[in-house]
């Protein structure tokens, strides 16, 4: 008994050390990402601007190379498939080159940042695992554990998408920033010493419910960042189209820059820096689609999460739905995402309006997590704060 208790405390201690180490490495990754953005160059502007102002490209040929057909030697050239997007709109704008732009130095920093993120993720995962071992249950019995696991899964989703060769490196900086904030909050405000669960939390439905909530939330986060960047990039492309940004824009010209006062110049500089960053992002169309796909993929899982929670509530409290604040906000989040999905299928609502709905929906998710736990308590008062 005593011996077991001692190992537990040891493991809990190791877990804490690992989480702090992960934070340190995330911080380094954060700095490397900053360097990537700062040293990355802004060469894509010309390309994007040309695409927008010139007649839009109509078709793209996709050549898919297949592996050997048999015997393992001959490599067949697969037939060319020409794809075309609907005419009009800005669907044909090419994606930006990524945070590093075309700068090799920037790219190097980007690669360092990703390597550091992988290392930090390993430490982070180790921290979560040892925590789980120290309490001998799933590591999400209180807000501290939930936050740590949540951050880990968000990085995991990102790394998986990277490994699947999705064009997602642009997500690195916002992601690492968020995870640092999340972990910082976890270790400072939410920290709860490792311990067992109260009887109401003993249920495999909890296991299912919370793990789904974490995976949903982490993925929805990725979707929300993509949606947010879509809004920014869309504005930027709009300005490019009007000639207000890009190489020919008035504020880009030196005479304009020196004419006005210091503050204005600072504003212009900030605007230029912002444009430089935006020009390196994927195109608005790509970001929009990416965000939608993530949200749409996660929606069934989120639906399941709520239902699993209802089943658990039924077993624990005798009613599957009781309008407890946590339940209310899960429901609001769910309806908001349904709203977003509808907006995507409704003429006059897709695009920016749908994107605002998507952000509103994610804000509901975040509020459900932090806001509800801090403000209302309710029956889900497992926060341990």
């Amino acid at each position: 008994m005593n011996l077991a208790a001692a190992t537990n405390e040891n493991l809990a201690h190791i877990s804490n050390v690992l989480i702090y180490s992960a934070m340190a490495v995330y911080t380094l990754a954060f700095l490397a990402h900053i360097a990537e953005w700062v040293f990355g160059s802004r060469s894509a502007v010309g390309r994007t601007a040309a695409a927008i102002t010139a007649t839009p490209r109509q078709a793209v040929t996709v050549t898919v190379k297949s592996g050997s057909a048999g015997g393992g030697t001959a490599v067949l050239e697969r037939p060319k498939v020409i794809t075309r997007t609907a005419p009009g709109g800005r669907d044909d704008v090419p994606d930006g080159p990524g945070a590093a732009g075309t700068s090799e130095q920037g790219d190097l920093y980007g690669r360092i940042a990703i390597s550091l993120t992988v290392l930090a993720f390993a430490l982070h995962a180790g921290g979560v695992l040892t925590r789980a071992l120290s309490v001998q249950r799933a590591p999400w019995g209180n807000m501290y554990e939930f936050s740590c696991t949540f951050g880990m899964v968000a990085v995991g989703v990102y790394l998986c998408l990277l490994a699947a060769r999705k064009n997602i490196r642009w997500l690195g900086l916002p992601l690492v920033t968020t995870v640092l904030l999340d972990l910082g909050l976890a270790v400072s405000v939410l920290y709860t010493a490792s311990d067992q669960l109260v009887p109401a939390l003993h249920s495999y439905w909890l296991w299912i419910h919370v793990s789904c909530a974490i995976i949903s939330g982490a993925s929805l986060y990725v979707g929300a960042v993509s949606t947010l960047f879509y809004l920014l990039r869309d504005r930027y492309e709009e300005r490019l189209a009007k000639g207000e940004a890009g190489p020919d824009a008035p504020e880009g010209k030196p005479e304009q820059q020196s004419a006005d006062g210091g503050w204005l110049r600072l504003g212009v500089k900030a605007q230029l820096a912002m444009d430089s960053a935006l020009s390196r992002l994927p195109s608005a169309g790509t970001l929009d689609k990416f965000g939608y796909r993530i949200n749409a993929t996660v929606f069934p899982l989120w639906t399941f999460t709520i239902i699993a929670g209802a089943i658990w509530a039924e077993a624990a409290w005798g009613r599957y739905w009781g309008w407890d604040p946590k339940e209310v906000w899960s429901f609001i989040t769910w309806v908001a995402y349904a709203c977003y999905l509808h907006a995507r299928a409704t003429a006059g609502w897709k695009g920016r309006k749908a994107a605002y709905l998507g952000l509103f929906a994610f804000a509901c998710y975040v509020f459900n997590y932090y806001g509800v736990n801090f403000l209302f308590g309710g029956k889900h008062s497992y926060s341990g704060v």
Partner: protein
Amino acid sequence: MAKTDSSSGSAPEDASADRLSTAPVEETGPSGAGSFGGVRRPGLLGALGWGLREATGWLRWFWRQLTSMRVALILLLLLSLATIPGSLIPQTSVDSVKVDDWKKGHQALTPAFEKLQLFHVYSSVWFSAVYILLFISLIGCIVPRTWQFVGQLRSRPPRAPRRLDRMPAYATWRTEADPEQVLARAGRLLKGKRFRTEPGEGSVAGEKGYLREAGNLVFHVSLIVLLVAFASGQLWKSEGGKLIVQGDGFSNTLTQYDDFKSGSLFTPADLPRFSFFLDDFEATYEVTGPQRGTPRTYAAHVTYYKGTDNTPHKTTIKVNDPLVIDGSKIYLQGHGYAPVVTVKDGKGNVAYQGAVASLPLDSNITENVVLKVPDFRDKEGAKDQVGFTGLFIPTLDERTGTMLSQFPDLVSPGMVLTAFHGSLGMDSGVPQSVYKLDVSKMKQFTKPDGKSKLSQLLRVGQTMNLPNGGTLHFDGIKPWATFQISQKPGDGPALAGAVAAILGVAGSLFIQRRRVWVRAVRAADGSTVVELAGLGRSESAKVPEELADLAAALQTDAPPVPDDPSTSDAPPTPDEGADTTEPSESSEGARA
């Protein structure tokens, strides 16, 4: 861009390539004179006819609006906003005590809030209005879409459009193979990939992914199932609490409940017959560490009897593990201790004997003890009711100097009591709580010195002597447990609806509806021109991929011959801007 809105200019020119979805098209409102056209004839009849036309026209317009995607969207948004106040303002159905506290703290706001039904948002008129409108809209949406879907299922895939190269995905090559052969092979290939195919003149059409629409309809129908199940659960539900001391029992009739709530259509006859006895109760607590005293396990061992059957069944009820009898669920809710005492009156007769269920005051189960003994005579034999109040402490640590329990388990139990005599006020007709002693008509006993109040710490086996000759003997301690007994019809359908909703929405979001056409015609030079085109319900990386697969498979039987630039009637080549790239990675995902 999804092709849902074929009203926008982006739809392909050919009618055959139109809507792949049954989503409603946006309606525009009535316009022009006489709202819906038609002339108004002179005279009363004319006016009447016109009015009728006008009214039905507007009704129809209103109905179309209500069942349009845009209004559904707005209603959904309204629903999410209308749900918010219920989480910010305490709700009677969730915690009525909190509501009363809130009302005390905000007396100025209370009347307005009550008018707005903000203390029961989820049964308020305005909240109901939003979701009822939404569900009417939903039904109005599902019915026509179902018919449309049945129509789509029965129709054949539409013919190949004239210009396949205008489709979102397109491939072409020349081959020596026979056109018929190519088409036959393409038909087989498509069938093999479970496309529904339709041969045409010099072409084959295929369509796949009908399950998407089916999934979408299943999802929306199951939302209705869920709502109906939830509503019927609310109307017919009943729920009551009961405190049972170890050794005692409960039989399921209305009078046995300590408190009882039910839906508006519930009748007591709906209560199933059963009874159960609490044989024993076990609790364990964290013994060390910062969470010392936190409960770890609760288990109530019970014996129950179903209906009129006399065979006893034994089982254990735990916190997440209710006992289910005939659709009623018995949940373990809480527990505490009941000191067992024997009170003798001044004449030495037993005036009370048994357990005194006491309510916990804190998480270490310090309990408030109240005992009323109405049938009591003093030394002289005169009627004199007595009442005891005090604390029961499962773990009393006298060194701490506090009368609060230090731990929830029975480590060193003690009871501190003081006693009153006079009138308990029980025959005043006003119902009394057994957990409260009304001392307004009573006098507290004092110690023999006559000044300080009588109060005594009792351990099990000890006795308290009253100045009027009575005694209270602390016999022992029994645990008690509280149970919630609830019957809720509609749980089964709700679960079925929920499962159907998940499957439906997954189908709707992950399955891609698409069409493929293959055309093979003999060119002037004798070779065969093969053309392939694909159209997806939304722009998906999957459609070109699939088309490429198909083309590759087809090319094994119809190998391409190098293009002869001199041939004049080559199929129209794509626009000059065409560009050869690797497939763009970023555009895959959910639609895949």
